[in-house]
């Protein structure tokens, strides 16, 4: 693994994790009860079902500076609400294509089925995700937005200046 | 279906008959084998006593070459010697599960201009013959059913442990099924996966001899008239030390020890000389139909 400038500055991946209440959040609790140490980079947001996952949550997380987004739901067939996880899966597949189009690497977004008994899987999934995102380096969308805004401003100024010239 | 072939050092010396019979059988079954290019010693047992990562590197060099050759149309890597098979599998296993091993070995490979991504599958000929080619196909090709052969199938230790997945580690049955399909009778005995002592016959000989004695005696007691092996070291130990065991313990053991590929070759009608039968010290028993060639210096 190469050491990037960001890592030298103490950059750490920031992962936002959306976990469903019944399986994956419970599994994360189990990981805690079993004292399974894992990377401290993931921040969990609890939703009742992975079906509640609005693609906008993912986009918003990236836009606000997340380097990766992890979604955890019950295994197929195990959804507490019968089929919410299937709905999540469909949305995630579409969203992945969208993220591809935006140039966001596939390793930055991940859907995992983790049942209430799979504390170990919570640990390995988070560690693996953090390692992958770490290898990719920071996404830093907010900074890019700022750059793009500045470029836009400059462009507008340039255009404005030109127009002035023409009319002058 | 084709395979890369890793002979290993033994098959070029004490295990020559094993190599001869493997090549003959695969030729007969029309399964192409390509010898691994410029293979090196697998890094077996004794070497690991010095330094594990260097031993892994030795094995990994072969895995890496195999991976490169697979890219050019080679198949899984076949390792007939149990020790080679185990060491190659073990290297594969630890490179998959242990970050430290993976890092060190990969760095070492890079120094020699090689890279390994971890895609090589290590296979034993027993596994290939029974699970890829299939017992039915082999049974159809039998021309000399091995009637009258009461076979104690001896798997030895390393081929069924602990990383392989094709058979049970303590009670394997793959070879027994093959023997039955060839018309032989497989003798059920409890020692089929019990260690022959490996290199102990050369180092702490008394212990090694005793292990072999137990194996030979039990096979005899269960009515076997031949033991088949799938490892050059097992074959060597069981066969070459029989006289010494008889002298040392006052036994009268006289058990032919052949490679399972020799047995298979005979059933397929391959001439004994092509299978290296003449290299065995104890003559094979007769089948009901046909008398087998007896080596000159029995």
């Amino acid at each position: 693994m190469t050491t990037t400038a960001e890592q030298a500055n103490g950059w750490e991946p920031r992962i936002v994790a959306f976990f469903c209440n019944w399986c994956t959040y419970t599994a994360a609790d189990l990981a805690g009860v079993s004292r399974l140490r894992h990377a401290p980079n993931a921040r969990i947001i609890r939703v009742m079902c992975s079906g509640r996952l609005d693609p906008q949550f993912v986009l918003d997380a990236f836009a606000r500076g997340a380097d990766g987004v992890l979604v955890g739901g019950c295994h197929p067939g195990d959804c507490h609400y019968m089929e919410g996880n299937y709905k999540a899966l469909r949305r995630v597949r579409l969203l992945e294509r969208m993220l591809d189009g935006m140039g966001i690497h596939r390793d930055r977004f991940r859907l995992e089925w983790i049942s209430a008994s799979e504390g170990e899987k919570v640990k390995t999934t988070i560690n693996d995700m953090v390692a992958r995102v770490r290898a990719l380096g920071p996404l830093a969308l907010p900074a890019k937005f700022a750059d793009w805004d500045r470029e836009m401003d400059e462009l507008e100024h340039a255009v404005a200046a030109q127009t002035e010239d023409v009319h002058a | 279906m084709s395979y890369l072939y890793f002979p290993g050092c033994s098959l070029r010396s004490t295990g020559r008959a094993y190599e001869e019979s493997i090549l003959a059988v695969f030729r007969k079954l029309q399964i192409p084998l390509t010898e691994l290019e410029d293979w090196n010693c697998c890094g077996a047992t004794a070497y690991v006593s010095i330094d594990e990562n260097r031993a892994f590197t030795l094995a990994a060099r072969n895995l890496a070459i195999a991976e490169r050759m697979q890219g050019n149309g080679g198949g899984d890597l076949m390792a007939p010697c149990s020790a080679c098979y185990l060491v190659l599998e073990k290297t594969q296993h630890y490179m998959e599960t242990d970050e430290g091993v993976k890092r060190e070995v990969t760095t070492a490979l890079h120094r020699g201009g090689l890279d390994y991504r971890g895609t090589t599958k290590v296979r034993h000929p027993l596994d290939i013959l029974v699970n890829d080619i299939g017992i039915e196909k082999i049974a159809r090709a039998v021309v000399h059913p091995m009637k009258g052969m009461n076979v104690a199938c001896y798997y030895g230790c390393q081929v069924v442990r602990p990383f392989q997945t094709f058979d049970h580690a303590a009670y394997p049955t793959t070879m027994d099924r093959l023997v039955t399909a060839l018309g032989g009778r497989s003798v059920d005995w409890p020692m089929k996966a019990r260690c022959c002592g490996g290199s102990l016959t050369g180092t702490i000989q008394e212990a090694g001899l005793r292990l072999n004695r137990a194996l030979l005696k039990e096979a005899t007691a269960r009515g076997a008239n031949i033991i088949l092996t799938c490892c050059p070291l097992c074959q060597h130990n069981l066969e070459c030390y029989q006289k010494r065991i008889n002298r040392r313990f006052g036994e009268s053991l006289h058990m032919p020890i052949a490679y399972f590929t020799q047995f298979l070759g005979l059933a397929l009608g391959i001439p004994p000389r092509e299978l290296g039968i003449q290299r065995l010290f104890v003559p094979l028993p007769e089948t009901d139909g046909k008398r087998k060639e007896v080596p000159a210096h029995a």
Partner: protein
Amino acid sequence: MKLPAPPAVRTETTNSPPPMKTVTRRIKFESELDLSFGEHVAERAYGQKLLSCIQCGTCSATCPLSHYMDYTPRKIIAMTREGFKEEVLNSLTIWLCASCYSCTVQCPRQIHITDVMYALKREAIARGFYPAKHPIPVLARAFFNRVMHDGRNTESRLLITLYLRTNPFKMLKEAFLGFHLFRSGRLSLGREHIKGIKELRAMINGPEPRKEAVPL
């Protein structure tokens, strides 16, 4: 530290216990132990699993050689865990292990006992805890030299080296067998070389000489 004599196998040990001649005082003081030894070995045997041993004895009972050992494999694990470093590294057990992996596949804690034995052999060699003419370390070293020279090993040469280094008289005992093997074409005195030996040496020796085992 050297063992007094090369190993000899005393037979029927269970039936003829050695007569008790002297009264021996036996006690272990905690200060004589090396409490970090267990973790040290565990690390070298790929993971911490040996610490989870429950002393059930499956390894000893499944081992085909345990009845020749001075300590059963179970005891070796217990002693390693508790830091009986000298006893462990001086034991015959580690040299009797024939690497058949019975214990490893049957261990209810999935401890890779064979790899623990390897780790202990390495430690013993690195610290000189073995008799000078003990055949196994010699075999291991001869093996290594042969492979570093040619990339492959020729068993006959290896055996000859072994016997010359340990017990030249054994040569005579084995000569008869050697003759048979040679006649049947199963013993070649020739040598095999690989083409990429330079690269191989670069891989194995590395840019800087590597320590064989890290001393404690």
